[in-house]
C-alpha cells in the first residue's frame, strides 16, 4: 500500500473553510493576548488604571490561553492536512510555529530581558567595596544593627534586589 493510495481513502475535510476561519481567529486572538499588554505598559507612555487592569488580566490568562491556542492550531492542522497541497501546508506549519512562539512568550518576562534580575545578590565588606566611589550615592538601610548599602548606579539597572537584613526579608527597590 502506497502513501498515495492511503491518502485517497481518507476523505478530504468537509468543513475546511470553517476550519481555516477558526485557525485565523485563534492566531489573531492569541497574538492580541500577548501584544496588547506589551503595548499598554510600554515605558515612556502614560498608563491609566483601566489599561493596567486589562494588561494584568491578559498577562494572567495568557499562559493558558496560548497553550489552548497551540493545541487548537495543531488539531485544526491535522484536520486540514489533506485539504491541500504544499502551499497551504506551509501556511499551516507557520501557524503552528507562531502558536508555539506565543506560548513561549507568554511564559517570558521581557522586562527581565531588559534588566536582568539579581537572584543571588553578592555583598562585599565596606573596605573591599572598591567598585563604589566616595561620591557615589548609595541606598542604605539598618535593621537590627545590620547595615547594608545598595549603590544606586546598580539599583537603577536591576530595580529590585532581594535581601534579608537583620533577619527581616526586604526588597530594595529603585
Amino acid at each position, binding site marked *: 500500500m502506497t502513501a498515495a493510495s492511503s491518502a485517497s481513502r481518507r476523505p478530504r475535510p468537509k468543513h475546511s473553510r470553517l476550519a481555516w476561519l477558526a485557525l485565523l481567529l485563534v492566531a489573531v486572538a492569541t497574538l492580541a493576548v500577548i501584544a496588547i499588554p506589551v503595548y499598554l505598559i510600554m515605558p515612556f507612555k502614560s498608563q491609566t488604571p483601566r489599561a493596567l487592569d486589562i494588561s*494584568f488580566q491578559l498577562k494572567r490568562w495568557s499562559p493558558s490561553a496560548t497553550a489552548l491556542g497551540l493545541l487548537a492550531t495543531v488539531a485544526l492542522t491535522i484536520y486540514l492536512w489533506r485539504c491541500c497541497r504544499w502551499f497551504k501546508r506551509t501556511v499551516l506549519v507557520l501557524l503552528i510555529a507562531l502558536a508555539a512562539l506565543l506560548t513561549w512568550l507568554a511564559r517570558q518576562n521581557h*522586562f527581565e530581558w531588559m534588566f536582568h534580575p539579581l537572584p543571588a545578590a553578592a555583598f562585599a565588606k565596606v573596605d573591599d567595596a572598591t567598585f*563604589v566611589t*566616595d561620591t557615589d*550615592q548609595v541606598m542604605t538601610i*539598618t535593621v537590627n544593627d545590620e547595615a547594608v548599602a545598595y549603590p544606586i548606579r546598580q539599583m537603577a539597572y536591576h530595580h529590585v534586589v532581594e535581601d534579608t537584613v537583620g533577619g527581616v526579608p*526586604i*526588597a530594595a527597590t529603585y
Partner: protein
Amino acid sequence: MWERNVDGRTLNFHLSGINNQNFIMRDEQTGSWWQQVSGLCIAGPLKGKQLQLVAHDELPFALWKREQPTGRVLMPDERVAAKYEPADWEEQYARLRVVTPTSPDDALKPRDLVIGITVNGAAKAYPMAKLEQQAPVADTLGGAPLVVLLDASKKSVRAFERTVDGRALSFSLKQGAAQFTDAETGSTWEFTGRAVSGPLAGRQLRRVNVLKDYWFDWKIYHPDTAVY
C-alpha cells in the same frame, strides 16, 4: 525599601512592568502587581494590601562608610556591569521625558527633585533647590514639628521630629562644621539626629521617613500635597 512579608507569607518580587514611569513588581507567590513607589498592591489576589516600609537613606558612600564601618555593600553583577548607570546618571535622568499630564501653573517643573514627607496623612514636598539654600528647615506637618537636615554634600536629606522633652527646638547650621546647633540649649547635633555635645548630648531625635522623588511622581501619589 519594602518588607517582603505580607500576612505571614514571604514574597519574592520581580520587575514586571511600568505605570506612569514608576515600575511595577510582580510577586511569584500570588502573581499580584505592586507599585514600587507606594508599596501598594494594584492588581491580583492581594490587591489593596500595603507593603511595610523599611526606612532608608540615600547617602554619598563616604558618609555611609563613616556611619557604618562594618556594613556590607551590594556587589556589581559582572555579567551586566556594562549596563549600569554612568557616574553622571542624575544629570541624565533629569533630562528624561515626562509623560503624565502636568499643570502649567505649577511652580515646580516635572523633573524637579523634591523631598516628600507624609505625617499623619498630611503630605508635603520640599524642593531640593530650596533645601540647598535654606536647610536646616524647620516646619510643622500634620501637627508635628519637624526639622529637615542636609548633609555636607547637600545631596542627602534626613528629617526628624524636633521636639525634645516637650519643647520644639530650632536648628541652625554650625559654622565651618557639618553639624547643627539648637537655639534653645546650644547643644551640637549631627546629621544622624544625635546630640554629641551640650546639655542634650546623647539624645536622639526621632526619624521621619523621607522620599527623594521627582515632583511629577510625588504629585501622582500625593495629589493633595502641599509644597514648602
